[in-house]
């Protein structure tokens, strides 16, 4: 390759000196405004991106949703350590903040492992390591929605699939005897203080659309303080 006689001035060098000549303050101001705009757009998008489908249940020990979104780095280590493939990360387009872990109880419920591997896997504390007893987990709350469908409540059969499925046996769900239209029926009754929201009842419910569903507690339970005030 032939050597050229003298150095050329390269466009990059010319551009640099031209830029320094231009009003540095105007440039900074414009950049600052752009940054503010980006930040505001991001904040707004993020706020809307917080929408969480009612059927999407967070893993055991998950911090309350606002704190969870400050803590979860969306790494999927909880997903990897879940032995039942219950957990998965939300893909873009799903009604769950993208990349965050959740499960759908009707598909694969939480099996309530005693050693809680998902919480142990979490590097950030988004799944609170203070949760050491899985029966103290609060993923959600099972809600009876089968007034017109539940076999047991409508006296069609002696189904008690939800009662049998419940891992907090005899505490979180009881079958309460009622007299309905002159007949004795059993109403699956959820006890909020014992239910962990694992979703095994929803999974095993035999009606086509589950007659008992796990919902996040913020949706499923009204202010417990109110009952106290009336009491």
């Amino acid at each position: 390759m032939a050597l050229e006689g003298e150095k050329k001035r390269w466009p990059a060098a010319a551009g640099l000196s031209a830029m320094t000549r231009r009003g540095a303050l105007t440039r900074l101001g414009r950049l600052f405004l752009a940054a503010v705009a980006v930040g505001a757009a991001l904040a707004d998008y993020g706020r809307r991106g917080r929408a969480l489908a009612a059927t999407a249940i967070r893993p055991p020990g998950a911090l309350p949703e606002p704190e969870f979104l400050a803590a979860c780095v969306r790494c999927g280590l909880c997903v990897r350590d879940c032995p039942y493939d219950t957990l998965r990360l939300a893909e873009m387009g799903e009604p769950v903040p993208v990349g965050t872990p959740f499960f759908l109880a009707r598909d694969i419920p939480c099996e309530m492992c005693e050693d809680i591997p998902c919480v142990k896997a979490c590097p950030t504390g988004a799944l609170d390591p203070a949760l050491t007893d899985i029966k103290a987990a609060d993923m959600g709350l099972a809600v009876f929605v089968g007034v017109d469908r539940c076999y047991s409540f409508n006296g069609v059969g002696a189904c008690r699939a939800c009662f049998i499925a419940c891992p907090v046996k005899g505490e979180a769900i009881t079958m309460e005897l009622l007299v309905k239209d002159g007949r004795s029926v059993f109403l699956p009754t959820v006890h909020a203080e014992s239910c962990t929201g694992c979703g095994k009842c929803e999974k095993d419910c035999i009606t086509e659309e589950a007659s008992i569903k796990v919902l996040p507690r913020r949706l499923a339970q009204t202010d417990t303080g109110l009952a106290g005030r009336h009491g």
Partner: protein
Amino acid sequence: MDKIVPAPFGKWLILRRLCQFGILALFLASPWLGVWLLKGNLASSLVLERLPLTDPFIALQSLAAGHDLAATAVLGALIVAGFYLLVGGRAYCAWVCPINPVTDAAAALRRAFGLRATWKLRRQTRYWIAAAVVVASAVTGTIAWEVINPITMLHRGLVFGMGAAWVVVLAIFLFDLFAAKHGWCGHLCPVGAFYGVLGSASLLRVSAVRRDACTHCGDCFHICPEPQVINPALYGGASGVSPVITDRDCINCGRCLDVCGEDVFQFTTRFGAGHAPSSKQKNERANQK
């Protein structure tokens, strides 16, 4: 100047692709092999079930959002930050980031088809975006960039399931191809900006060791994704500027080493002037003259 010459492959480009795809392969292969070489994703991971790694920029946003980050993530972030303090912050961009092959492909197509039209963006914009991201995290109480971050979105997509994330990747590819040359990685990405600041004092650097041999052919400027970093090191000899490229924007990709016909560039420490040319190189030079 306008002649279209396809950039040659080179050792460093091949090594870089091996590194990028190797890391991805380790994440993907672990479930099949039944041995967790790498578990998690680029946001946070475990090496061999032991060593925690966490993206320090994500950790910073989490702290800004007001979360009391658990020790594992703090340790992981410190390990990663320490590593890039040594090898150059933006080595992440060139050697790890899965968006790099995407934007490199756009840049290669730009070169191949001689696409020159470009939206003039400012190189500093990314630093403001990075600052805005941290502020947005603090204001909203969320890890703000992760709702949109194409890096983790692509990587998570490949490892855990893509969903509609390919739209974001395609958007960046088209943006770089048609809207702005080196638009995303070179001007906008706050993750790269963060790693740039992190590694501004890093040890491993590219140096124009043999700048006296430069023929001003322009190959390095043509291929470099951050050509503004080359100028002072390559042409600052007369004014006593060190040949070491110390600009935080340099991504340590080594493409200049690959394309330079005169072997001007070498990887060195920031203090060293680099090795003396090998005897073989000396002989070649002598033969050329």
